[in-house]
């Protein structure tokens, strides 16, 4: 069962979510502030971080940036506001997904499982490592390297890249990507995809403004290549 660190300042939410997740068998550690959460991170070594955006002192976005500096830990934001602005900032800071409060425990858990789930590989005699231009994608080892240097990718970024490279030059609509990579319903928030594509391009493209690997087809979606 995944180990979850919950950073949430409101005691009732903290307690309620902790209770709900624990009942479903998760191992949960909670922290009331961003600073305490960062301390707990090193010690508790969670599989996933549930992070409230509105924190006293160090806010959720700052915590997100700090975590991303050193690790590719899966991060799901809890946002009480659901305001578009918050969500976008959190996604740009490197969160993999977000949940709008209030949410039922089953929804929270479904999101946790979706983020942690490895992308299903279509069985086949694939070589362990594929080369796309300067990119080397190791589908078995789940690593990506560019010009021989390993690139650190957050879970959502890695899954998106694996999904796109599994079918090079095929166009995927944002709704399709939401369903396959994030396991959201068809009517999920397409900004998740856009933010993730932007972060991914910043890491793998030579010039993110003129993408070579992940190309946009206006009105249709994204595709990998052609190189």
């Amino acid at each position, binding site marked *: 069962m995944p180990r979850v660190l919950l950073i949430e300042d409101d005691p009732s939410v903290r307690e309620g979510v902790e209770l709900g997740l624990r009942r479903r068998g998760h191992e949960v550690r909670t922290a009331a502030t961003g600073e305490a959460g960062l301390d707990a991170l090193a010690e508790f070594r969670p599989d996933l971080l549930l992070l409230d955006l509105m924190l006293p002192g160090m806010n959720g976005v700052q915590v997100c940036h700090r975590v991303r500096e050193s690790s590719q830990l899966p991060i799901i934001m809890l946002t009480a506001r659901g305001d578009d602005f918050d969500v976008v900032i959190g996604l740009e800071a490197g969160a993999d997904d977000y949940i709008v409060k209030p*949410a039922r425990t089953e929804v929270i858990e479904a999101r946790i499982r979706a983020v942690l789930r490895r992308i299903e590989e279509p069985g086949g005699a694939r070589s362990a490592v594929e080369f796309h231009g300067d990119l080397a994608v190791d589908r078995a080892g789940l690593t990506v390297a560019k010009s021989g240097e390993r690139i650190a990718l957050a879970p959502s970024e890695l899954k998106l890249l694996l999904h796109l490279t599994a079918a090079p030059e095929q166009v995927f*609509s944002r709704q399709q990507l939401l369903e396959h990579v994030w396991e959201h319903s068809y*009517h999920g928030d397409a900004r998740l995809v856009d933010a993730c594509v932007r972060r991914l391009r910043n890491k793998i493209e030579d010039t993110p403004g003129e993408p070579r690997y992940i190309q946009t087809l206006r009105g249709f979606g994204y595709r990998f290549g052609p190189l």
Partner: protein
Amino acid sequence: MSPEPDTGPGGGAHHGPDGAPGTGPDPGPGGLAELRRGRAARRRARSPRLRPHPFGLRTRLVLAFLLVAAVGCGTTAALTYRAARSAILEQAQDTAVSAFREQVDALNIRLPVAEDDLRPLLMQIARQGKPRPWRVYAEYGTVRVSSTDRPSSSVITPELRARAADQRLPHGSFQRVVKGGTPYLTIAVPAVFLTRSAEGAPQRTGLVLYAVMALDEEEANVEAMVTAARDGALPALAVALIPALIAARGVLRPVRELRHAAHSMGRGRLDTRIHAKGSDELADLARTFNESAAELERSVAELRNAEARARRFASDVSHELRTPLAGMLAVTEVLDEDADGLDSDTARAVRLISAETGKLAVLVEDLMEISRFDARAAELHTDEVDAADCVRKTLQNRHWTDPAQVAPYLGEGIRARLDPRRFDVVVANLVGNALRHGGAPVTVRLWTEGDQLVTEVADRGPGIHPDVLPHVFDRFYKADQARTRSAGSGLGLAITLENVRLHGGTVTAANDPEGGAVFTVRMPL
């Protein structure tokens, strides 16, 4: 307020109602004039009330001024003409009459009159004509003598002859006659004996002398005066145009400013004020307008503030409710699972709390959504999607897959640019509403009309009562005041309406003649 000429009362520089020059600064050739015309045209397009008035204030003012000027000039000219004419003619005839009398008095005539004696005398008198030469005729009984080659003149009227014979007019008389377009002065003087005694009346001799003098020079002088009066009147009228236009401008500019200001206030610019100067009625009007505008602005600002406060309050309340709800909603599962192990009362209480927490969460979610619409913070994240796919997924996600309940008839291959999440909410709300308040089977149709995507949700229920129909999209509207709370939050259709509006579309509710309610959503593709 822009001082530009426009199409207001009296027209502008480019089309005065009577070809009059405009009062505004003349727009230079080319660009500026074009720009002004363009702006005027745009203003016309925005506001059909702004049109040129062929009998506007300017025209009326100018006409009034011209009329006054014309009447003034005409009266003056007429009076001058009359006075001058009589002065000139009288002077001429006085001179002529007295001169003729003197001549006649100085005559030495021996009676009976002999034509041969008389003629030289007449010639002599004719040479003495004053102020101008005259023709002299003498009548004595049947004798006719004249200074000309014709013995008698046709200009002398019987009237004058009668008056000459009149005993009561011993000094003769005169008459102005117009013959053949030429005015003549005719003078008749009877020749008399002067008695030696002082009180004795002069005795008539029976000889009457006539002088006929053409007055064409005097007439020409009078004509010249008339011409002068006329020639003076026209420039006077032209000159009268200037004060007329200045006066018109003085009246019209404030009026035009007032109209612009009223128009701009009508478009919501409540801070519009007019420059009010002077102490005339128009300035009073401007000041009154400004005061009213300020008052209006104050009231509207208060209303807006009150409304904003109310909206903020609703938004803040729903925000504040989310946090406790987040804690409660996270533990409802725990309650539901453990309720079985509790005694029956506690179990019922626990289940009730769990169920109501779920409903409260939906209500707060909907309140938040409405607050975002009210605060104009709702954003549209459009994507190009297959419309039929969208509707199918919506029905699948809500588990409305039984065709006996919900029957989809979807036009395939329609690509539309819309916000999939919001469109999902629209379709789900309408279908959920039809299932709850209408009756199965609910049909969902999708097709295109021109550049519009049409989504229709119809049910086979009793339809919507005509009294309720105008209010179906109202917030928290209860069709039946005594109705128990339904599964919905009471905001579903209001949110549907806002979502459709955000797409630039419309949603209407109606009753199908065959029975059942029909909701139709039209959105641009």
